[in-house]
């Protein structure tokens, strides 16, 4: 069973951005993503999920490395300065390259 290399981009950010970010991703050509609700702590303090207002979301995107880099660049440009947000990237293997 052959495995194909792709890139996994993980973004953790403020839940309030969800709608906007998904629009952004779509515009950049991202075809799939997975979201989980999260809480955490970082340079902008502690973010709890008790109150939807204050929670984080964790978005995962599996895609071509070039697209991952484009998404990362866009998010950095538009959101880094003013929002709680981190992102990191990893190499992953997938079975059906046409999906990602």
């Amino acid at each position, binding site marked *: 069973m052959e495995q194909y290399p792709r890139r996994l981009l993980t973004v953790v950010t*403020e839940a*309030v*951005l969800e709608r*906007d970010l998904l629009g952004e991703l779509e515009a950049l050509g991202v075809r799939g993503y997975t979201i989980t609700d999260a809480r955490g702590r970082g340079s902008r303090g502690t973010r*709890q*999920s*008790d*109150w*939807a*207002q204050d*929670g984080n979301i964790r978005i995962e995107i599996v895609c071509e490395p070039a697209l991952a880099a484009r998404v990362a660049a866009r998010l950095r440009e538009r*959101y880094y*300065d*003013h*929002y709680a947000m981190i992102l990191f990237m990893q190499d992953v293997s997938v079975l059906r390259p046409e999906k990602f």
Partner: protein
Amino acid sequence: MTGIDPVICFFIFGIAAGLARADLRLPGAIYEFVSTVLLLAIGLKGGVELARDTGGMPLVELAGVLSIGLLLPLPVFAIARMIGRLSRADSASLAAHYGSVSVGTFAVVMGYLTTRGIPYEARAPVWVVLLEVPAILVGILLARGISKDVAWDKLARELLLGRSIVLLLGGLAIGWVSGPEGTQSIQPFFFGLFKGILSLFLLEMGLIAASHLPTLRRHGLFIAGFGLVMPLLGAGVGILVGLLLGLSTGGTTVLATLAASASYIAAPAAIRTAVPEANPALSLTASLAVTFPFNIIFGIPLYQQLAVSLHG
């Protein structure tokens, strides 16, 4: 001792538990449940009363209420900018928060008047709907100017389709269509439990407010003073408009309370995306941890007294 409303006690209890760092986090789903029921109940109650009533809302009242939302942000902005020496973005954010309203505060004033048997205009929930959005738009305008960067139509659409407006309007419509008899079967849930549900809501708000109090220390005295003075300004404006419109004493109290209240849900969310450079902790702390407690504990009785004496 009968003077202390238990729902206010729940709020104080929540603050105390939060400050003591008690193990009392309530899951988000409970907050959603409780606030949904409250919003629907407020709308329903208004709708049922409107169905009894024959008269509609005078156009001049519509204009009067809207003008609070459109104009109140201006002095708020000016005070924040000049006296507080805050950035333009932060001042605009505060203007949006304090020009808009808090439905939680409205629920408390409703309960306050009902318990004391003081009548007020049945259409009061409509005022909430009218007051929520305009100030937020004005605030964004103050931050951005008439910028093309802002997708104004999309923004307005999203604001008008926000949770509280939709639930209030939905409740109003259902209460109005079904009327007093039609809603009888759902009254035990929405009306009978109202104050109990409100207690849970205020317990949660107390916990949330407490979790924002530490920020207060960081942002110094200005924000505390601001959070205490602005509601007085707002209440003054509200009473004035209420008297000019010829509202009942109860209605004047409600309008004063609404004007005195500051948004802690719709405004923060909208400003967060439209004016990202504003510090969200600043405005949320002022509105949630200072103004909200002040209004429900001290403000409402005060505004009611003022309304009574000025009405005389």
